[in-house]
């Protein structure tokens, strides 16, 4: 164990929990990819393999009643916030018993019971929603916080400016986390992003910002812990940029040929799960315990997937439910 690691004052139990959760996310994503291969998911799937450290580092600092919003790449965040993997997989497969009865699918994965107010198919749209959730929390005088995770591509959309300005002007309990994986679909974000970066933009809005290695779950955990305690103390919004890499294509269907193989290989060597495993091994955790986390996660998600495949389609009556209270949505009504 190196000095710097000792300095970090490792909480091995907490980190073992992180390791377990990161494996659960990865195994869930592997199952989702499998579902795509088997054509049981027809819409787009955006796996978060390689980015698990951020989901876990962020959400392990959120309470169940704190609010989280996410992006198209939201499975990991949702699981980490405490959603049931079975309900999520049923949702991905469009089945009854999915979180949203199969009506939203992967890009709209949500579990309001655990404060997860939805992934979003529109890049950056969750930034405003989070500002509003934080605004409601403040109006209601609660001590919850609202957190938004989004990608590095999102920082070029208007809501980044408008939403962060909003959160700061109204001194809202909001945490903004940018997952900087270097890409927006097939585009290197650096090529389309002016200036010194996301953190500088947030600072220019008066929001204290830090940059962390998103593949180091401990670093994320610590940065988020600091930010969350400042926010809960009434200090207004905080911003975190977490650098990472997506180890798969943009979607399950994307071969990602726009990236050089050695770039991807190098990224695998920074795999956040392996990195944490190494840290735990260095701290004396037995290889068997780490392997067990992996095995258990895979077994769980295999079962989840098998179970989801067996779940029924939602009944057609669901199709007309949950539209709105006013009026009759059916064509025959007209």
């Amino acid at each position, binding site marked *: 164990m190196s000095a710097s690691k000792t300095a970090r004052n490792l909480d091995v139990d907490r980190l073992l929990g992180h390791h377990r959760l990161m494996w659960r996310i990865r195994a869930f994503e592997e199952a989702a990819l499998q579902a795509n291969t088997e054509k049981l998911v027809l819409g787009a799937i955006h796996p978060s393999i390689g980015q698990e450290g951020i989901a876990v580092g962020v959400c392990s600092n959120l309470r169940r009643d704190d*609010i989280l*919003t996410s992006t198209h790449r939201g499975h990991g965040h949702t699981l980490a916030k405490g959603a049931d993997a079975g309900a999520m997989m049923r949702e991905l497969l469009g089945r009854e018993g*999915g*979180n*949203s*009865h*199969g*009506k*939203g699918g992967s890009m*709209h994965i*949500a*579990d*309001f*019971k655990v404060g997860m*107010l*939805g992934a*979003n*198919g*529109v890049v950056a*749209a969750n*930034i*405003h*929603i*989070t*500002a*509003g*959730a*934080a*605004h*409601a*929390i403040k*109006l*209601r005088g609660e001590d919850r916080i*609202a957190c938004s995770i989004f990608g590095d591509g999102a920082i070029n959309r*208007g*809501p980044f400016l*408008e*939403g962060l*300005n*909003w959160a700061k*002007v*109204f001194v809202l309990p909001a945490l903004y986390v940018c997952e900087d994986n270097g890409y927006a679909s097939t585009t290197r974000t650096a090529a389309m992003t002016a200036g010194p970066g996301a953190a500088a933009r947030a600072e220019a809005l008066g929001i204290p910002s830090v940059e962390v290695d998103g593949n180091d779950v401990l670093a994320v955990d610590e940065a988020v812990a600091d930010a969350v305690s400042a926010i809960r103390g009434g200090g207004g919004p905080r911003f975190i940029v977490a650098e990472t890499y997506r180890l798969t294509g943009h979607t399950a269907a994307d071969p990602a040929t726009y990236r050089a193989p050695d770039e991807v290989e190098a990224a695998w060597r920074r795999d956040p799960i392996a990195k944490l495993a190494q840290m735990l091994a260095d701290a004396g955790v037995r290889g068997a315990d780490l392997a067990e986390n992996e095995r258990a996660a895979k077994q769980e998600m295999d079962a989840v997937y098998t179970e989801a495949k067996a779940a029924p389609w939602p009944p057609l009556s*669901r199709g007309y*439910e*949950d*539209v*709105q*209270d*006013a*009026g*009759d*949505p059916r064509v025959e009504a*007209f």
Partner: protein
Amino acid sequence: MAVMTYADAAKTTLAEEMRRDPLVWCLGEDLGRGGVFGQYKGLPEEFGPQRISDAPISEAAILGAAVGAAMTGTRPVVEMRFADFALCAVDELVNQAAKARYMFGGQTKVPLVVREPMGMWRSSAAQHSQSLESWYTHIPGLVVVCPATPHDNRGLLKTAIRSDDPVVYMEHKNLWALEGEVPDGDPIPFGVARIARAGTDVTIVSWSATVHAATEAAESLASEGIEAEVIDLRTLWPWDKRAVFASVEKTGRLIVAHESVQVGGFGAEVAATVADALFGKLKAPVKRLGSPRVPIAYAPPLEDMLRVTPAKIAEMARTLVQQ
């Protein structure tokens, strides 16, 4: 019961609802000084800056934040200032507010009122005059309200604020100063039209400011012995088909008149629905009267050219009753 303006009817109602429900709050630019049309005058003093909240010039954030705040247990009333500026926040309204309940399988509702002052208001030109109510009728999840009188601006706003649906609430800028009796009574339910004037010869369906043009037309027609029935739809989604059908079954003739562009306007929905449902029972073709497909001009004579006036409505009615 009191006589008050259309603007004051809304303001009084808002205050009543805010007293009743501490979770109702308003957000928009310049609200702290009473709003650009004075629709919030006095409310900052009573409810404070948290519940009558100023906002930066960030329509997308205003509406987007309201979506998040609605999903988190409050009931925001959003002020968009001019309906035209709501075009800066369409993703937030259409992709987010309108769809959240369905996409999330009923895990949430989005109780939200979006006030969008609409319509032509002398020489406001192309970017401050639009009426896009028909757009919102096309979006599942949204309610669309277009009050024409102070009375309705009370009863419908109450219903809108109490509704769990996102409501696009379009007040006509030219009606702010209109006075009328405003009874204390119950909220007015969505989807119930108002017979603005009874008649037997021709039905004129309308909403918002054009209701008054239709009523004026009906009065001048009456002096010629033509009795027009004027129906104020009040809400476009849901809309009161039953009332419209009942009227047209009686008169056999229908004109749908609205200020907005005729092509692709909600008049087409009403006309197509009636022409279908009452096929064979009509004495004349169903007619529509809307604006030409032209951006709204600044110069008064050119602006006037685009208006649906009492004269145009009466002229069309005269032609119809001869059939």
